[in-house]
């Protein structure tokens, strides 16, 4: 049956809007911005789906979630069935439903999107995951013990996914995490108002229920090395998912002044250490009246929105290119704007100025214009000569990117690295140059997305399983 022959169904042209906190109110609190669909709304949204035979939406999802079939179950009100279907492919749906860049992935390829707004796939996915969390998560079946031991280094989405898959296959899995909680960027980077930490910890608990041991406070490369894990620790294979946690700075004068943070420090103090609850929580954070965030990606948006919530009077994004080239998700930039974040575009600082006590008082900035397109196809920003001016700010957050942390690469013998220090791993298998050692996520690709890191964790789990079966 072709789509045309179906009884003509009236299609709602727009997505059911996501209920959200009022922008002005939410800009001052840390509660989640997007409130989630109700049962009635999610069924209504699911009914917008055309159930296309070719499943174009699925091809846009890096882990190929069975989108049409889970949406069909939602439309029928079978939420338990739907979440089971989602989990066949996606180990962290409550997270992905919230933070996946859907407009560039599943929803981008949705048939409806050609004429109208695409189906709100992420929103429906989120609903199902939240529904399950509220109704009690069923622990999946675990295969009989194989007697093989696998070490996972890093508990971000890559490590968590790899651990879950291997545990289900009956292997004994231990996750080593440097920080005091598991979750990686999901815990220390992405703010509470976008991804509540309770949601992440619920997913981590599911992993524990599968029998995975999670050793927090364990920095591999320090208390032990990858080589020692394999030689003395009795581990048959190791997966490295240590992420891209090393903050880059601009290397301009004045960057070590008081009042200059890396985005990692700024967000870690706030999210992981809960500085927004100071002094009930002990970790302090200090903010001036006017905050400038350098960079235009998701991390920069998160920092700028966090600054408002911490009480900044003004929060500015300072970015070298124009609005069109902002690397952040459109939705994130819009949310930021709605909340009152301001944009200084085609602008970049050349020096950070401080007073006699070493505190930031301003930035010497230079204006840019867009020139010819560069290798990435984006028009290259060119500095305008003589356009320097002083921007008065008292706090600066540097959010221009992160590289891989060298602790593990530096202490692991025979691990091939790229020039930037990323681990070289076969994209098809996750195998590194070192036998028995696999890697995936941001430490391989550079800063990317949650779903890609998960996909890499899953790929590696399959190869590790194969490797162990043949060993």
């Amino acid at each position, binding site marked *: 049956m072709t789509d045309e022959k179906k009884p003509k169904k009236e299609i709602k042209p727009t997505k059911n809007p996501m209920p959200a906190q009022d922008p002005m109110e939410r800009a001052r609190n840390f509660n989640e911005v997007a409130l989630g669909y109700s049962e009635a709304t999610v069924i209504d949204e699911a009914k917008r789906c055309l159930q296309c035979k070719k499943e174009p939406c699925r091809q846009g999802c890096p882990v190929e979630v069975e989108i049409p079939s889970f949406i069909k179950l939602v439309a029928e009100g079978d939420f338990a069935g739907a979440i089971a279907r989602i989990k066949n492919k996606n180990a962290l749906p409550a997270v992905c439903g919230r933070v996946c860049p859907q407009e560039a992935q599943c929803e981008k390829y949705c048939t409806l999107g050609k004429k109208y707004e695409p189906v709100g796939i992420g929103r429906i996915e989120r609903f199902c995951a939240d529904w399950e969390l509220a109704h009690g998560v069923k622990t999946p079946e675990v295969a009989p013990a194989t007697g093989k031991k696998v070490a996972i280094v890093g508990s971000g989405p890559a490590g968590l996914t790899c651990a879950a898959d291997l545990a289900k296959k009956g292997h004994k899995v231990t996750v080593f995490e*440097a920080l005091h909680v598991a979750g990686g960027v999901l815990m220390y980077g992405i703010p509470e108002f976008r991804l509540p930490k309770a949601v992440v910890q619920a997913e981590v608990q599911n992993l524990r229920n599968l029998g995975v041991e999670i050793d927090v406070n364990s920095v591999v490369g320090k208390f032990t090395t990858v080589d020692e894990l394999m030689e003395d620790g009795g581990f048959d294979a190791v997966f490295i998912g240590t992420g891209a946690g090393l903050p880059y700075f601009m290397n301009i004068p004045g960057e070590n002044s008081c009042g200059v943070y890396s985005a990692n420090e700024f967000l870690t*103090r706030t999210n992981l250490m809960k500085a927004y609850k100071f002094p009930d929580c002990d970790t302090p954070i200090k903010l001036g009246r006017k905050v400038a965030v350098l960079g235009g990606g998701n991390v920069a948006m998160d920092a700028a929105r966090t600054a408002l919530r911490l009480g900044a009077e003004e929060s500015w994004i300072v970015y070298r290119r124009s609005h069109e080239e902002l690397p952040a998700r459109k939705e994130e930039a819009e949310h930021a704007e709605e909340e009152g974040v301001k944009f200084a575009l085609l602008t970049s600082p050349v020096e950070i100025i401080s007073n006699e006590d070493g505190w930031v008082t301003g930035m010497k900035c230079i204006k840019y214009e867009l020139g010819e397109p560069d290798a990435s196809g984006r028009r290259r920003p060119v500095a305008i000569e003589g356009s320097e001016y002083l921007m008065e700010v008292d706090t600066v957050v540097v959010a221009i990117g992160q590289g891989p942390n060298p602790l593990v690469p530096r202490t692991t013998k025979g691990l091939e690295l790229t020039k930037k220090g990323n681990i070289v791993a076969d994209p098809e298998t996750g195998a590194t140059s070192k036998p028995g050692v696999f890697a995936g996520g941001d430490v391989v690709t550079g800063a990317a997305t949650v779903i890609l890191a998960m996909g890499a964790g899953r790929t590696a789990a399959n190869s590790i399983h194969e490797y162990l079966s043949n060993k």
Partner: protein
Amino acid sequence: MYKILEKEVFSPIIKQFVIEAPKVAKSCKAGQFIILRINEEGERIPLTIADYDREKGTITIVFQEVGKSTTQLGQMEAGDTIKDFVGPLGEPSHIEKFDGPVVVVGGGVGVAPVHPIARSLKEAGNHVIGIIGARNGDLLFWEGKMREACSELLVTTDDGSYVRKGFVTDVLKEVIEKHGKENIPLVLAIGPQPMMRAVSNLTKEYDLKTIVSLNALMVDGTGMCGCCRVSVGGTTKFVCVDGPEFDAHAVDWLELGRRGGIFRQEEQQAMEHHQCKCGSGCGGAK
């Protein structure tokens, strides 16, 4: 959870814990540190590994109560547990057999972190001259342990209430004059920032290689946040992963001092909040 096995009180504000942490004890080396978090609301505070017992799986820390977290820590007793304890962090001290006597200086609570380094240097076959000092005799601790760890030990107090009067730099100057600057291959100093800076200024005059252990503000201690950055010889270093030990003469002390004071107001506020939590004069123990 990490259990406090023993507590010793050296002075009303300087205390020692022996903590059960086998993973750290197994692999730590002189010069490294740990980060601990007292409880779920706690901040991550770095403390140097002052001693360790690989067999018993224990780590010794000695700390001075200077603010909220260290005061709260000092109120804990043997048998209590600490929520998080991670290490060893930082690069170990560079230990080798040097040509000539090595001088190791510990000021105030800095005597504790300097101890394992002195011991390792001596074990490597060096003649180790130890200099330790405190404001007064009551604040001095570990004299016996240091005597064992060093080949010879010189003790001083700022006010002369014990052994002799003078700063550690006064004693250091005498040692340099006595042995001759060209015969001393290395000075290593740990203590409060003004003391390390004073040592650095002194040895710079003699052009004497000097290593200090920097106590920058830290959060994660793994190179992830950049909070601990400091300029050394004109380039930015992360104290937690590139250090904590650096060439004293290359450190930008002014910047280090300023960055160390970023949260002074908040630290005061935290202390006040801590002390008055229950209003019963419990000192915040509840």
